[in-house]
């Protein structure tokens, strides 16, 4: 995915991922987004973390330390109630945006 992605789309992808999978660490989120998009989207791994921490400060997600299948310590994120609400808002506004862009592309 391009560096200057459409504003907020990374947040949306993270929120959606967590809503589907439940609890996941950063690396898992990266893998899930790539897999779920059939490798169409790839997340710039580093930029995920500031986003995760910002969303946590906004109260959309919560984190706790846990163990991976291979027994490694990692920080797991999960959605909060307000994160769920935010996901709805973000989804709607994204659909709006896509619709708008599509309209322009179709009729321009």
């Amino acid at each position, binding site marked *: 995915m391009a560096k200057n992605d459409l504003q907020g789309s990374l947040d949306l992808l993270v929120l959606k991922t967590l809503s589907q999978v439940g609890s996941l660490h950063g690396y898992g989120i990266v893998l899930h987004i790539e897999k779920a998009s059939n490798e169409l989207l790839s997340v710039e791994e580093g930029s995920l*973390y500031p986003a995760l921490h910002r969303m946590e400060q906004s109260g959309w997600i919560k984190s706790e330390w846990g163990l991976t299948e291979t027994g490694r310590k990692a920080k797991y994120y999960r959605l909060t109630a307000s994160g769920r609400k935010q996901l709805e808002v973000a989804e709607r506004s994204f659909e709006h945006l896509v619709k708008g862009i599509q309209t322009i592309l179709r009729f321009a």
Partner: protein
Amino acid sequence: MNPMAFVSFVKRIFNLLTRVRVEREIQAEIEAHIELRVEDNIRAGMSPQEARGDARRRFGNSALIQERTFLEDSSLIFERLGSDIRYAFRQLAASPRFTMVAVASLAFGISGASTLYSVIQAVLIDPFPYRSADRIVHLHLYDQRATPRDLLLTGPQFLKFETFPDLEGAIAEDRFSEALTGEDLPEQVQVGKLSLNAFQFFGVPALIGREFGPSDSQQVAVLSYRFWKKHYQGRSQIIGSSIQLDHQDYTIIGVAPRRFTWNDQDIYIPLPYSADARRIAGVYARIGPGMTHPMMERKLQPLLDGFAQETPDNFPPKFKVHLVSLNEIAIGEFKNVLVILFIAVSALLLLACVNVAILLLARGEARQPEIAMRKALGASRLRIVGQLFAEGLALSLAGGLLGIFAAVAGIHLVSRYLPRGTFPTEAEIALNLPVLMFSAAISVLSGIGAALWPALRASRSPFRQEAGDIFRVVGQMHVRPDYMVFLAAQVAVTLVLLTASAAALRNLWQVLHADLGYDPQNLISVGLTLHDGAYPRWPDRVNYYERVRREIESQPGVVSVAIAEGPLPPVMLDSAPFSIVGEKSDSNEQVLPLGVSPQYFAAMGIRLLRGRVWSDSETVHAGHVALISEATRRRYWPHSDAIGQTFVLNHGIMTGNVWTLVAPGNAGQYQVIGVVADSPNQGLNEPVMPAVYLPYSMVAFDWFNLVIRIQADSTTLLHAIRQKVYGIDSAQAVGDATTAFDVLEEASLGRERFVAWLFTAFAFLALAFSTFGLYSILSYLVVRRKREFGVRLALGAQRRHIVRLVLSGTSLAITAGIGIGIIADFGCSFLFAQWAHGNTRDPLILSAAILLLTFISLLAAFAPARTAVSIDPIQAIRSE
């Protein structure tokens, strides 16, 4: 701010403080990410080195990511808060008048309340440095007389008293004026003789050296801090040197700390116990914890009754003991004044908060459309609240800071101008930090609260309703009810303070113009004290006093000299029972007796109305004659001639003691030979009590005052007087000179002036607060209704209609405020009645205050009203 945002805010600040811990956690999280990728890569068949290189490449610059992540965790809110505060300061700077008034209101409120409360704390609540000072009492004995007698005990009685159960110790004390000898000329110093246990009783350690205790000899002395500074310039080498009092040597063993000023003595020496029934001393005691005064009084009464049987001369007949705490002795009626002032200043603090609330509300009101517009443009509710919060915070902090500075200045001012003699010298007036913080917190909270009020209202209400005002022609028809309440409260408090100030000023005026009955110009009084046991025979003592009087009268610069028993008027003296010979009279009749020499009336400038003054020969031969004051004549001989009548006076000291010699043949009967004019004898603005003047020789004390009328300046005179007295008898000392003006100032003038100035300052502050409150409400009202006024003017409304519209909203609030103020005034008047005769209920004062308030209100309304009528209709309609 919603709770979540607040938690986050706190968390972010906390994160900043624990930066290392947070960074380590982020680092661990990133490392885990890379390791997971490495594991996957190895599983996919890469060599470990390859796998790590790939993982790092994919992740990017981990140090930079770590830094950015940390910033998300901490500083963002500060950036936002910072911009909010910058914005708030810009907003405040944009309306300097509003900002100045609001900040000044807060500052005055905070500083006024904390200054006065600090004074009250220092002089009323905790003035004394002594251990458990609140339980130290003095003992008064009441018989049917208005003024009580102090409990006086002999040595053996005191030893019995000291160990009485339920008392936590007691001290015996006596005060003498003694001569400081062994130096140039004898100087009169105040010597406190304290029982040896006294310093243990007080529990205040010495400043330098040590204090005396039960194991000390009698020949030691502890200096007071003031005397040490004055006489020894604060040299610490004097410890161990000797000091001579009445030709007796004492070793200086210590200096008491500055706040130890027990009864304002210069030097403290041990009080010798004596079994002599005529050598008696005053008593102070500390009652046990948990004992109330009435309980203790009941327990002590039988003990004291027993003492009275042993030494009946030292006790009044059929007395009741009454305990008086130190504070009551020290502060007396000034307490009421301070309490009233505190109530006033609390009202002022309230007023300041209300004023800030009004200002912010009016401003918030005017900003509703702006806020609604910003909200419509996408500002979140949190953002708007945050911004207004920042504004309130900036305002309150500025006010609070200024208030703290003003309080520091205020405490200096008050401690300089607080009249001496109205509070104990032990008291140390300093700013009370908790109180300062409390009033600052209240003001800041009220500021923030008032700032948030419109924010919360605006952020709740939908856009159309508020922004609609922009497009609506007719604005709100009425002032919002919360303003009305605030405005009315302001007016009410202002009215009460105005009347209080007027009453205080009138009191001051009355005191300044009181008919003194004597001439205080060029009048001084000098203390004259015999050393212990001097001139024990009555004729010798009277002759000594007469000689001193004559010698000093011959001194150039002296017009006349008199001897008097008491200090200069209007200081109160003890009264004595009075009856007329040959008439059945009520035993409760009391007059104020004063022993004087015949020159007293001329020296004081007291007019002789009838009859004659006695002669010097009548003085030295103990003539049973007296002059009565006009008040006495009016009361006892309203229709008959007083001259030639005889009255009986029961001094209660007829038997005398070591220090007091009663004239031979003095049976307490005196013949009236003249009538003189009244002069105040219970304070300047108190009614004059009947007084009688007797030859001082009838009861010759070991001390008297010389009342001296001088030609002009008295500065060099005191030394000359000391030399004269030294020439007659080198053992006797002369005290300091006090001018009649000093006495007046100390007696009540200082207090009245202080109170009057404070109240006037309060009243004007209150007036300023309400004026600005009204002005700002009306100004914003006019701004909001500009369009409406424009339309009305365009449609032909007269200017006076517009003015009426402007005033109608607030006039109800003002009227209600005045009404409430009048009621509050009646409620407060009983408080004032305790110290002032000019009460606040006086219709003249009340109507003057109402008039002033109305006038000022009209003045405040003038500018907004003028703005309203000068609106250009075309522009007003177009402008928005």
